[in-house]
């Protein structure tokens, strides 16, 4: 609770700052800047920060150089066999030095969840799993500061652009998180990112180290039976610059095992009661079906920047085993509008 209040205060201050900046914007039109070269602002990653698809980069979002400020809005849609993830948010970049972001992720579930939800609902258990479209909503607030380096123009040394950042994530479906054995519904994540483009072979590299105890980026909570607090996890993006407006590449993010191997907690029900019903519903061995798993995430993407006001990213996402549903791979689309 105290954590929550602190975050609230921090964001109150940020909003005041935003208001101040917007106020002075009308006074000085030149503050607004779109001076970055096409595509070099990156796209919006799923947590709302500037970066790739699932990894925050050291680049500051938007098209402003150090001469001004700029921002963008994004909508991301991920279609997986048992889930649909939608993320809608906005971000501002200030003097190519720091960025603030907010995004709301809405994860709707289907398939296995509907079956489990139908059964548990029929038996009168409060699991947070509904008979249809169990939904998880999560607010993600982000901030990032570029510390030093120039990802683009430092072609005669190996020093990357370095940024540090943080996310505060607040998951709204606490009931479901209890069912899934997560310790917390909200959590902080901290990261350091290094980004560099090597123009002689048209390739961008990004490495991010994130300090977190999130389960499935926080969509299924933070911490769990196997967790002893936050840990460092690696993330990697490699992009090949195909044209000045097109980048292809892949990403990998390491995930934890906080709830890996633990079954879901079905309050007030012993598995003996549940087993025959679930078998009847075609779910077979209940202890196997209801065992949670978590895998690293991969994606392979193509990002297209027709102009500085709009970009589209298409990706194949392989998110592996998610909680009680295996082999979640599917399609990722992200649209970004810059202003």
């Amino acid at each position: 609770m105290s954590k929550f209040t602190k975050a609230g205060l921090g964001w109150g201050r940020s909003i005041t700052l935003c208001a101040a900046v917007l106020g002075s914007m009308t006074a000085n039109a030149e503050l607004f800047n779109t001076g970055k070269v096409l595509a070099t602002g990156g796209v919006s990653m799923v947590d709302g920060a500037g970066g790739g698809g699932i990894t925050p980069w050291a680049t500051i979002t938007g098209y402003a150089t150090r001469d001004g400020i700029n921002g963008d809005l994004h909508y991301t849609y991920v279609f997986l066999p048992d889930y649909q993830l939608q993320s809608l948010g906005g971000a501002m970049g200030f003097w190519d030095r720091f960025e603030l972001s907010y995004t709301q992720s809405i994860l709707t579930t289907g398939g296995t969840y509907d079956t489990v939800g139908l059964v548990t609902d029929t038996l009168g258990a409060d699991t947070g799993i509904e008979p249809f479209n169990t939904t998880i909503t999560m607010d993600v607030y982000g901030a990032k500061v570029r510390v030093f380096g120039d990802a683009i123009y430092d072609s005669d040394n190996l020093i990357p652009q370095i940024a540090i950042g943080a996310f505060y994530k607040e998951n709204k479906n606490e009931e479901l998180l209890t069912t899934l054995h997560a310790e917390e519904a909200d959590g902080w994540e901290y990261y350091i990112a290094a980004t560099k483009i090597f123009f002689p072979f048209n390739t961008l590299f990004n490495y991010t180290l994130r300090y977190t105890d999130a389960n499935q980026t926080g969509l299924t909570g933070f911490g769990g039976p196997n967790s002893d607090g936050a840990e460092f996890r690696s993330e990697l993006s490699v992009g090949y610059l195909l044209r000045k407006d097109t980048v292809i590449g892949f990403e990998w993010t390491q995930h934890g095992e906080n709830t890996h191997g633990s079954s879901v907690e079905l309050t007030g029900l012993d598995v003996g009661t549940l087993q025959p019903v679930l078998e009847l519903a075609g779910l077979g061995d209940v202890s196997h079906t209801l065992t949670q798993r978590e895998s690293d995430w991969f994606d392979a993407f193509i990002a297209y920047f027709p102009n500085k006001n709009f970009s589209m990213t298409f990706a194949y996402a392989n998110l592996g085993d998610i909680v009680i549903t295996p082999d979640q791979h599917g399609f990722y689309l992200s649209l970004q509008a810059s202003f």
Partner: protein
Amino acid sequence: MKSFLRALTATAMLSFAAAPSFAQTGETATIPSLDSDVIEQWGGEEGIRNWVEGLFYYIMLDNRINHVFRDFGNIERQIFLNTQLEQMVLGAGTEYQGASMLAAHADLNITLTQFNAVVEAAYNSCERINLPYKACNQLIAALAPYKYDIVTK
């Protein structure tokens, strides 16, 4: 932070000072180095000159930056010297006879936004002369470190 950057700059300047003509602008040592056949990719010295003409065509059409070049004066000579510079940084063995990048831009108050506008003109010119994007990026890599000499505001 500032002192760290200053240390980096000082190191960079020292390594330049080691070269015999430190007042002059020399070839950039990119990491990794440019393709060995980069001059052929560019269509030789003639191809590089075509590109510079295209570059100035797009610069003079861009209201964000054309006044800077117009005020500097003698566009023909700027094209001539730029051709030498680009031929030199791509390794054609041409001697660059102009003022150093630092000296030439010292009083111009060039912003990063303006520098980026020239980079956009550079890509437009590459497309205009049908140069493949990856060949174009060889020159972008070779010119990129001049940002520190050119952008003073």
